[in-house]
């Protein structure tokens, strides 16, 4: 049994709440990185912040174009890594005094909101995956090749 499209969802990625939240957040991050007043030796950080903020919507878009639900889930997790990176970068910028506490809190609240939206979507899709798959020792490993691949068959 597989979860090929459109089993995990059909339609335009732009209608996805996670993509919409990510796009709104990406604009915020872009503006924030433009305004960021960091010394020259921290320009690389401005680059990483802009990159991480901008990475999330296209990751969701690309994952949505994949065949399997599990691949879409992976894409969401990959995008979450960027969201966590941003949390970490903010922690650093606040700690070193490059952004004010209130501004950092405001940005982090928006970041946390995006994280929540993506995590909820992950939970929802994971539950859907669980319902549509049969487990063998916790794995959907019903064909010989797959069993062999994980060392469960000759």
């Amino acid at each position, binding site marked *: 049994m597989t979860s090929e499209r459109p089993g995990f969802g059909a339609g335009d990625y732009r209608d996805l709440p996670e993509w919409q939240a990510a796009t709104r957040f990406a604009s915020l991050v872009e503006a924030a990185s433009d305004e960021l007043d960091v010394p020259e030796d921290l320009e690389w950080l401005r680059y990483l912040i802009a990159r991480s903020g901008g990475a999330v919507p296209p990751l969701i878009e690309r994952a949505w174009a994949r065949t399997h*639900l599990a*691949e879409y889930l992976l894409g969401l997790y990959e995008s979450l890594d960027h969201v966590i990176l941003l949390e970490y970068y903010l922690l650093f910028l606040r700690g070193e005094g490059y952004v004010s506490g209130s501004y950092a809190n405001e940005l982090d609240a928006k970041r946390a909101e995006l994280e929540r939206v993506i995590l909820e979507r992950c939970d929802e899709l994971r539950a859907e995956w669980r319902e549509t798959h049969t487990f063998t020792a916790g*794995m959907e490993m019903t064909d010989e090749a797959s069993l062999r691949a994980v060392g469960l068959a000759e």
Partner: protein
Amino acid sequence: MLSQADNELLCRVGRGTPMGDLMRQYWLPALRSDELPRNDSDPVRIMLLGEQLIAFRTTSGAVGLIQNSCPHRGASLFYGRNEEEGLRCVYHGWKFDAAGSCVDMPSEPADSQFKSKVRATAYPCVERGGVVWTYMGPREDPPPLPDFEANQAPEGAEIGHGPARSGNHEWTVFNHSRNCNYMQALEGDIDTSHATILHMGKLTPDDVPEDSWTRYNVSEWAPKYSVVDTEYGTCYGAYRPAGPDHNYWRIASFLFPFYTMVPVNTLGGQAMARAWVPMDDEHTMFWSMSRRLPYEDIDMSWQEAANDSGHLAMRGLEFEPNTTDWYGRFNLKAKAENDYLLDREEQRTSTYSGLPAITIEDQMVTETMGPIYDRPSEHLGTSDAMIIRTRMRLINAAQALRERGEVPPGVDTPEVYRQRSGGVVLPRDVDWLEATAELRKAYVMHEGLKVHFTV
């Protein structure tokens, strides 16, 4: 990057520091049982979380872990006489039992009750699976020991002291010291992408058989990651293509407060726990506890060939003899003072690093970061997602304990440590977390599973 203040919070482990307080919530591996081989055997100096302690085994076999400095005049109890259920300071003869009670005070008048008023700091100890565990925290009744599958050797079982899977022992407990802060050492364990470069940088796909998992590793130096928070810490799945319809996954974990499980064998086929226990802020004792599960190994002769050709540095480790110094236990011969036995000719012609063994490669990179790595000046990118999440979990947990008294993950839930790590090949259409749920559980046997050993 991390601000200086957060770096200090993450790295300092002395009593009263946020991370030191967090670590003192847990049972800690203090020393190996065989370091105190007999009842009344020689006391051993133990440096743990910046505290100088003396370990001794009493006449009846209990283990004591007591402050170094005699509560009377401060002379070292290391020089004490270990006799008749206690450790006696040779200065004035004050004697302390394993619980730290002063049980004899020959320098005071015979009718004095002074001895009943004096206690030495002593930490409760429990032995399990060849490890002496101690609790240095605030509770009268310590929490339960973490339930590590690899640390359940039954009493009397023979325990090997080589690296995991070396020799023929079912159970092993292996140590070596590292001259740097615990966190940078630990971060090496959860940074999977370095393995293909530092340890396998000279291996090409043609050096390994087509169906070998190592082939997937060396074919793709930049894996993708899926990192998740868990009830015990953090877990990552790093994946690379394994043919058109599968991915090869390396699944590993960080477990509070300093444990790791790395993906060197088949998921479900290895029982292990690694610990990076701070001796102090700048010295770490590495622990590897493992149990060889009764699975068949697949043919790994190519690995020996790669070792022989020098493309993989898998030579044995050599140790300095242990001394009684605070830092005299389990020191490797390859060290900063001899450039870790770097062989430039070998680096040019065979191995990637020119260093003699994988452990030495890890030792070199983490020690040369400095005693406490200056994280404000580092440059972390997307491949460091697991490191970043782990730091955040530790920092947040230390702050939550300090500010709100929140008990950190795992302290009262020993069952969360029942985990396994390893590699697995999964079809692309399966969700890795769901698909590996059983394989990641400790104490579960999987019929017919064969063990791939990877680096």
